[in-house]
């Protein structure tokens, strides 16, 4: 009895302290919902997102005059169901967003650790490369890459990863520089650990928090960039349902007042990015005291 109380108390206290710090319930719920929708898109979507019938083009949402229950959120210029496309679009954004953040994170964290811990010419080379890369305009560079390698989801992930790794490298290197002066790292050196072991066992676990915080904040940037690339026609290739692509298609019906084709996909992007940013801000305060100033 006593034992179980002792075991639950810290958890309870922890939870309540999370709450008092303004745990971002709504953003987490939105992200959770988006992930859920992305995973079960096949079961949730009422129609095939890529097939429409031209006889049922530009149907308004169900609550507007002329809307039908067949298309709850209306249909687009090819008569495809907007709701189904939004649902499958969540899958594209989630998959591309998370994998691109992961690619950028692994690359940037790895280089940041190498650069910070090894120092010397390795540090010089990696940091000059990072500086040069940071100087390039990210969106223009991503567009160029996309134009060269051609549009596909896989390529988008590689492009976003290779454009955004620099932000991790900078921050992680800075942290490693201070970590390597700490006693536990010095002890490991005295104990005869190899550089490789120290970086893997002692440095990496200590920078993971920062990497996670950065990753959450990057998720928003990556999702917007993916949407922009798709909007410009160098991102996810049609007829795949990506939110940015839907906005590009929605432009065609905009002057006729078919608002749902423009407003709804944008709302999805906005909710996802807002949630990621709010969660990232909260995680930053919670996990990483050093980043609080950022």
């Amino acid at each position, binding site marked *: 009895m006593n034992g179980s109380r002792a075991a639950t108390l810290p958890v309870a206290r922890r939870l309540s302290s999370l709450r008092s710090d303004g745990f971002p319930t709504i953003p987490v719920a939105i992200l959770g919902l988006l992930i859920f929708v992305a995973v079960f898109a096949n079961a949730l979507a009422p129609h095939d997102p890529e097939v429409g019938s031209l006889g049922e083009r530009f149907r308004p949402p169900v609550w507007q005059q002329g809307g039908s229950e067949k298309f709850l959120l209306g249909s687009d210029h090819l008569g495809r169901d907007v709701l189904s496309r939004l649902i499958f679009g969540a899958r594209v954004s989630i998959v591309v967003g998370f994998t691109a953040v992961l690619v950028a994170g692994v690359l940037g964290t790895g280089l940041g650790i190498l650069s910070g811990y090894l120092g010397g010419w390795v540090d010089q080379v990696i940091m000059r490369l990072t500086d040069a890369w940071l100087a390039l*305009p990210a969106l223009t*560079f991503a*567009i160029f890459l996309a134009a060269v390698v051609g549009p596909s989801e896989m390529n988008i992930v590689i492009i976003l990863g290779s454009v955004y790794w620099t932000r991790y490298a900078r921050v992680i290197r800075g942290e490693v520089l201070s970590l390597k002066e700490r006693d536990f790292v010095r002890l490991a050196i005295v104990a005869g650990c190899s550089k490789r072991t120290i970086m893997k066992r002692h440095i990496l676990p200590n920078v993971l928090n920062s990497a996670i915080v950065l990753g959450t904040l990057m998720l928003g940037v990556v999702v917007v960039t993916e949407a922009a690339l798709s909007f410009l026609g160098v991102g996810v290739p049609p007829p795949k349902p990506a939110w940015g692509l839907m906005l590009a298609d929605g432009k065609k019906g905009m002057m006729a007042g078919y608002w749902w084709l*423009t407003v709804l996909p*944008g709302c999805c992007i906005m909710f996802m990015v*807002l949630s990621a940013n709010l969660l990232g801000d909260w995680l930053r305060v919670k996990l990483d005291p050093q980043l609080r100033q950022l």
Partner: protein
Amino acid sequence: MKRYILKRVGFAAISLVLLSVTIFLLVRLTGDPTVLLVEPGASQADMEAIRKQFGLDRPIWVQYGHFVSSLVRGDLGHSFYYRTPVLELYLSRLPSSLMLAAAAMAFSLVIGIPTGIIAAVRVNQWWDSAGKVFALLGLSLPSFWVGLLLILFFSVYLGWLPSSGSGTAAHLVMPAFALGWYFAAAHMRLTRSSMLDVLGSEYVKLARLKGLPEALVIGKHAFKNALIPVLTLAGINLVIMVNVAVVVETVFAWPGIGRLLYEGIAFRDFPVVQATVILNGAMVVVVSLLVDILYAVIDPRIRLAR
């Protein structure tokens, strides 16, 4: 000072070399560059001619030398679509881009600086929270979606503003707003934190102790110094805007460089895409170099610290 400038020029030069190498290698490693450099639907003989012209059958470092020397001579190739030298095209679009960027910048500063100051002076009060929400929205809404919503509301429903094109001041309003929106939020955030820094400093305390009225302390003593980092960022952001504008220009059919880049992609006009990216990249590198040097001139602590 001289050493600092030399060092910065050196870094900028490295960035430019890296930019050219990256673009050169990417085009050649991701497939046959002839396919990109030749017009769609060209014959086998044309492809051979292009291969000869660009020396694509020669070793790679010879090719790179050729690539760089034509860059330095300002020869960036011919557009397939417009049938003119790409450099000419770029320069003819540059004024439109700069005009849009200047308008968006003006908008972002007019919104960002006052709200940032208010948020810093009234820190943790209602104004500050409102400012935080504004900053969050500014940083989270994609500019092209803001642009589309503006068209939907002001052009389609209200019919007040033209939805696309350029020429009059009315054409400039919506693109400048859509583009400046994100930067207004960024400038507000920076004004707030820089103002908070300055307000906590000794000389502001002294000014208050002297008994100066609060409006004078903030308006004259704090404001001036708090503005330095904001204006530095604004200088760099102006070129960033020219780059980011590609989506906004596409939405509003604004005839700037971003639109040129978009056309280059849409018409598979590779020389245009390549040249735009190179020139935009070079512009960012050069302007950040100038801003850094100017900053060091204004604030001696920067050059002494390194």
